[in-house]
């Protein structure tokens, strides 16, 4: 409200609700966003043309070198759902199991699962107009259905907080419950290694893997964390559990997810390492635990992360080489260490 009074709304070309329905926060930097978006619109227009040609040529999207290159440069919003569905294998699953999603919702209920989900419906994206109770249609009911169906489908996982944010984004992009369900299955069931099951072993493992990568690539930051006894779970849990939702700007998260669906969970490490490496000097200024926490919140804000196109180029250059072999080896050793700790 206040900012609207200061900057006359009539001349403000950036709407206060974004295309996804999110209200911009009170401290939103309209000037910086405008400067960025005027350049980015050109990129989007160019990419839209290239994608239109790519998609016109063949019947479907297959994972290939070209597609990988295209995806890294961003999938246009109008093709995003279709491309996510194709490259993640969600489309294939959906085609192989027609009607399955609806059967789940009509089948036997599970009251504790429903209660856990219901608890979080109201507090998923209260800043998004499409999730308000007054919205028509209100996406809360779609969110409820997708999470419930998923919990019934994958009973080992059920419902874990964090999945509400992920499913919420999927619904905003696909505008389709069934597709959201199969995309959630692609993420939780295949792309992410066991993040959400009750023991959360995959999640804990990956946070340790990040710690090891930081130790090798950015030893000064690792020394700072060790010196103050800060566990990585304190500063990066949200990054992993919510896949950067509500951590980074919406557009940036979607660009990250483009690559996540196509290239897999390695992308999460690239993003995390880029954020840390790029802000290494700032992080190293911290001299207490609260300071460290503040710095890790600071580095997810500002121009660097808002400028999603440059940011996505950076994640493939800044952290240096990061082979799947390295990640797999680290995952194995970290997992073993965690299991030994009990």
């Amino acid at each position, binding site marked *: 409200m206040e900012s609207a009074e200061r900057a006359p709304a009539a001349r403000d070309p950036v709407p206060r609700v974004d295309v996804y329905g999110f209200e911009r926060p009170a401290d939103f930097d309209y000037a910086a966003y405008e400067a960025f978006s005027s350049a980015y619109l050109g990129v989007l227009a160019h990419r839209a043309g290239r994608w239109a040609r790519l998609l016109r040529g063949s019947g479907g999207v297959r994972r290939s070198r070209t597609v990988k290159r295209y995806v890294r440069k961003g999938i246009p919003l109008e093709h995003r759902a279709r491309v996510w569905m194709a490259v993640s294998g969600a489309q294939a699953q959906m085609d192989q199991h027609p009607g399955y999603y609806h059967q789940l919702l009509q089948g036997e209920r599970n009251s504790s699962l429903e209660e856990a989900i219901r608890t979080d419906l109201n507090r998923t994206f209260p800043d998004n107009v499409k999730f308000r109770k007054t919205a028509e249609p209100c996406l809360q009911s779609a969110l409820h259905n997708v999470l419930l169906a998923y919990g019934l489908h994958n009973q080992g996982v059920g419902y874990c907080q964090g999945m509400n944010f992920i499913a919420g984004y999927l619904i905003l992009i696909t505008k389709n419950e069934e597709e959201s369900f199969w995309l959630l299955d692609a993420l939780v069931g295949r792309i992410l290694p066991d993040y959400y099951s009750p023991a959360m072993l995959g999640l804990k493992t990956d946070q340790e893997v990040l710690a090891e990568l930081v130790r090798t690539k950015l030893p000064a930051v690792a020394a700072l964390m060790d010196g103050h*006894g800060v566990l990585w779970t304190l500063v990066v*849990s949200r990054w992993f559990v919510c896949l950067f939702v509500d951590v980074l700007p919406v557009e940036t998260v979607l660009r990250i997810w483009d690559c996540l669906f196509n290239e897999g969970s390695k992308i999460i490490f690239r993003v995390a390492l880029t954020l840390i490496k790029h802000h290494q000097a700032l992080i190293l200024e911290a001299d207490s635990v609260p300071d460290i926490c503040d710095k890790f919140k600071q580095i997810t804000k500002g121009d660097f992360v808002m400028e999603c196109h440059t940011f996505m180029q950076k994640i493939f250059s800044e952290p240096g080489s990061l082979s799947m072999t390295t990640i797999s080896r680290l995952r194995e050793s970290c997992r073993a260490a965690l299991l030994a700790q009990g």
Partner: protein
Amino acid sequence: MEAIWLYQFRLIVIGDSTVGKSCLIRRFTEGRFAPVSDPTVGVDFFSRLVEIEPGKRIKLQIWDTAGQERFRSITRAYYRNSVGGLLLFDITNRRSFQNVHEWLEETKVHVQPYQIVFVLVGHKCDLDTQRQVTRHEAEKLAAAYGMKYIETSARDAINVEKAFTDLTRDIYELVKRGEITIQEGWEGVKSGFVPNVVHSSEEVVKSERRCLC
């Protein structure tokens, strides 16, 4: 410039999902209340100074934790380095009260060899008409576990200050009496920064510090 404080205490806030842990902490550290709050995934961190006696300040480091059961695999690592804890339940949610015992058992296992001074907090006391747990039974349960009991509301700012400062004072007394001591490799209690400049409370500060050695 860091303010001057006598000790730093680490507190942990635990309890079932949606009992209002984050809202209580935000009210205490930021003085505001948001009717809707994101679920906490993992652990979050807040800090504030409290004055327990004129001139005697304690720095509180407060760990906010996820309430959903599976996140305990992450949050339990934070018990060990906490000296105090607020165990919350929601007075309008009986289940959250029934789970108090389970939360205490969970902490007991993971806090070894240290101990945590807990206060039992019946939260959302502004919603008295929807109450499912009486004050009497909550007090009885708290007494059985040797805890104090307090009812709070983050929305109406009832007893929020009191919940944190009373707990801080109790811990301070235990530290003063030597029942809790500062230990190498334990972050629960840390000795603060005492200025060279002589001020009125210096004498007190000195005598208290002596008994900790």
